[in-house]
């Protein structure tokens, strides 16, 4: 690897570990998880971990990952910046009169976070290793219940309750559905309308001249109204109420009433 000179005399096992980490970069659940894994290479109690050394390991790791042109999520870079800051504070003597927590406090807190995460991982493993219902111990297989009395109990869980509330309160978010209807002219509406206009259809006239007012304003509304009316007059033609003709493709569709002949 090109950046092998960055670090001094890596033992083969260390290198293997580092390479494994690089291959696994996607497997980490965030910077803290990665730090915890790196800390394992120090092979000491987490309480005695060298945060300075850990910061260096992390920074090297991030540098190598970046050198390999692997995209790192922002939080890894934020952690890198913070560790670089911590490292410089740990290495330099504190400025006289400096306010805020000391570098040691910050380092101790990081060590605490790592120890706590490790402890929770271990607790989780211990929890899952416990005897579990349905796996290691079992409930009565044939619960005996008398079938004589039937008390109806209405039941709901908190989850049901919260979902119901969420459903009501977010109904407005979904209003676009109802809204859309304002731009939709249904065939039923068109049929209703055309039936009323039937009496005014003497001679052949163009279907588009029958479109309702205000529906030509936007293309969406015009399309919807045209389609609805077209479907409606087809239906009326089928019922024998109107006659339709079209002289050629895309020519205006002409119609006239048929009934009163």
């Amino acid at each position, binding site marked *: 690897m090109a950046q092998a000179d960055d670090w001094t005399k890596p033992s083969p096992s260390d290198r293997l570990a580092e390479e494994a980490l690089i291959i696994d970069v996607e497997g980490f659940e965030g910077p803290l998880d990665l730090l915890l894994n790196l800390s394992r290479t120090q092979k000491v109690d987490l309480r005695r971990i060298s945060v300075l050394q850990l910061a260096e390991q992390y920074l090297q790791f991030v540098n190598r990952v970046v050198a390999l042109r692997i995209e790192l999520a922002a939080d890894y870079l934020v952690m890198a910046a913070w560790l670089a800051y911590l490292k410089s504070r740990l290495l330099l003597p504190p400025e006289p009169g400096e306010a805020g927590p000391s570098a040691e406090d910050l380092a101790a807190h990081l060590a605490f976070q790592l120890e706590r995460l490790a402890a929770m991982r271990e607790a989780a493993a211990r929890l899952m290793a416990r005897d579990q219902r349905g796996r290691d111990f079992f409930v009565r297989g044939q619960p005996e219940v008398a079938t*004589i009395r039937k008390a109806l109990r*209405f*039941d709901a869980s908190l989850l049901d*309750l919260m*979902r119901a509330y969420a*459903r*009501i309160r977010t109904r407005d978010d979904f209003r676009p559905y109802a809204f859309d209807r304002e731009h939709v002219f249904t065939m039923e509406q068109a049929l209703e309308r055309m039936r009323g206009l039937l009496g005014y259809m003497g001679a052949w006239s163009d279907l588009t001249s029958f479109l309702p007012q205000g529906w030509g304003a936007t293309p969406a509304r015009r399309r919807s109204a045209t389609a609805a009316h077209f479907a409606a007059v087809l239906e009326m033609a089928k019922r024998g109420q109107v006659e339709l003709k079209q002289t050629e493709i895309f020519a205006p569709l002409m119609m006239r009433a048929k009934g009163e002949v």
Partner: protein
Amino acid sequence: MDPVELSLFAAPPMGEQERMVEAILFASAEPVTLADLERRMPQGCDPTEAIEHLRRRYEGRGVRLVQIGPAFAFRTAPDLGHLMHQERIEPRKLSRAAIETLAIVAYHQPVTRAEIEEIRGVAVSRGTVDQLLELDWIRLGRRRMTPGRPVTFVVTETFLDHFGLESARDLPGLKELRAAGLLDSRPLPAIDPVLDDEDAAPSDQSELFEE
């Protein structure tokens, strides 16, 4: 079985075998046959004898080991059958109208019927409110000091108890619901406005919303 052959299998001691039969009969959903027991227990076991021991152990107890055809099972002692009646409770999910009304009372209490209707966008049927009152999940609160002095509804201790809440203020807000992933960001099919006036027909709506 030949005793010499038996010892080769090093069958567990009879006390252990009894425990095994006890656990198997307890957990099984069906009466268990001798052949079944033999199959499930370590080789060399003698379930017949273990059952005999167990049967005697449970003599006079609250449950008994009984034989049903070729199989065995635990059954409540017949003289205690009267204690089992209460067991039979049929849980039934609340209708959508009821759970929504309940949710509104919980989140907005004290709340008037008119306010519930405004939030739900539909009329609240009498039956819905009655049901919640009967369950003792809501009760009448103070009258609102507005014209008409309408009654308000609040949730009860029973409600808090049932839903494991310390107080109604512990209910999560919308933002928290969303953060917890409880808010579907996609519209539910149930949002169709045609269904909106389901209060009129709560019975057949109720199953629509059981996930």
